[in-house]
C-alpha cells in the first residue's frame, strides 16, 4: 500500500526458507523495495534473508527492511543484514522498521544504526516525503 501510494505499480515476491522458519517477502516499485522477513532469523535462516536483501540492495536505491514480523533475531541475522549492505553505502539506502522491543535492542546494541536508518513506522512522514521526492526526481508516478 505504501509503495503503491508513492510509486503506483508494485511487484510482490515471496521466498520460504527450506526449514519453513523464515519467509521473506519483497514488494518493489520504482526505485524502492520493502523486504519483510517473517519468523526467526538465526544461524539456519540468516543466509536466506541475506540473499533476498542483497538482491534488493543491488536492484533498488531505497530499501526498507520491515522487521515487524520477526520473532527472533541474533547476531547471525545482524551479520546477514550488514553483509548485504555494501561498504560506504549511503545512509538512506536501508531503513529498518521495527516495533518489537527485543529486535530494537538487538539492532541498537549491535551498532547497526551506524549502517542503517531506524524507523518505527514505515509511513513515517519524513520517509514518505523523502521517497516521494526521490520518485519525483526520477520521473516516477507520484500519486
Amino acid at each position, binding site marked *: 500500500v505504501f509503495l503503491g501510494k508513492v510509486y503506483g505499480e508494485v511487484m510482490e515476491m515471496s521466498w520460504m526458507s527450506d*526449514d519453513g*522458519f523464515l519467509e521473506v517477502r519483497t514488494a518493489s516499485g520504482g526505485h524502492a523495495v520493502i523486504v519483510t522477513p517473517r519468523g*526467526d532469523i*538465526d*544461524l*539456519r535462516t540468516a543466509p536466506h534473508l541475506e540473499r533476498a536483501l542483497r538482491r534488493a540492495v543491488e536492484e533498488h536505491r531505497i530499501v526498507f527492511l520491515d522487521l515487524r514480523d520477526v520473532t*527472533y533475531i*541474533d*547476531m*547471525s541475522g*545482524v551479520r546477514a543484514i*550488514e553483509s548485504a549492505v555494501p561498504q560506504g553505502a549511503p545512509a538512506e539506502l536501508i531503513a529498518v522498521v521495527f516495533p*518489537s*522491543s*527485543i529486535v530494537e*535492542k*538487538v539492532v541498537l*546494541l*549491535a*551498532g547497526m544504526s*551506524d549502517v542503517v536508518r531506524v524507523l518505527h513506522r514505515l509511513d513515517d512522514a519524513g520517509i514518505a516525503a523523502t521517497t516521494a521526492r526521490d520518485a519525483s526526481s526520477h520521473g516516477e508516478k507520484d500519486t
Partner: protein
Amino acid sequence: VNAELLGPPQEPVEWHLTLRLLTSEEQIRAARKVAAMSVRAVHGSDEDAAAVELAVGEILTNARLHAYAGGVGPVELEIRVADQAVQIVIHDEGTAITSVPVVPTAPPERGLGGRGLYIVGQLMDEASVISDSQGRGLLVELRRRLHSGV
C-alpha cells in the same frame, strides 16, 4: 474456611531443567525456545522471555562457532527459575582456550567480535564466562530478574 473459595492450591514458582544437546542448528533453536517457555511458565514477561531466548541462542551459537569450530558438539544447558529470577548455565566441552572471553561492558567495534556477548551482557543482570575447572570447555553463567507478565 470453604476450600472451594480458596481455589486450586498455588504451585511453587520454581523451575529447574537440564538439557543435554548438540550444537546443531535445529537443537540450538529448540533449546532457546525451551528457555523462553520456561520463563513464560513462571509468568515472566514477554520481554523477559525474549531476552532469555536471545541470550541462550547467542551463547549456544557461540559454542558451535568457537568451541566446535562451526561444527557440532555436546553442550549442557541448565535453567533454574526461583525467587523471580532465572539463572542459566551453559557448559560446552570444546577445546580449552588460553584466554577466557570477558563479557564486554562497552560496544565492541564491528569486525572485532564480541558483539553477541556484549548484547547478552546488556540483556542480563549478570553474565560471566569461566573456564571449566577440569579443563573441559567453558561455562557461561547468566542471571536475569523476572518481571511479571500477568
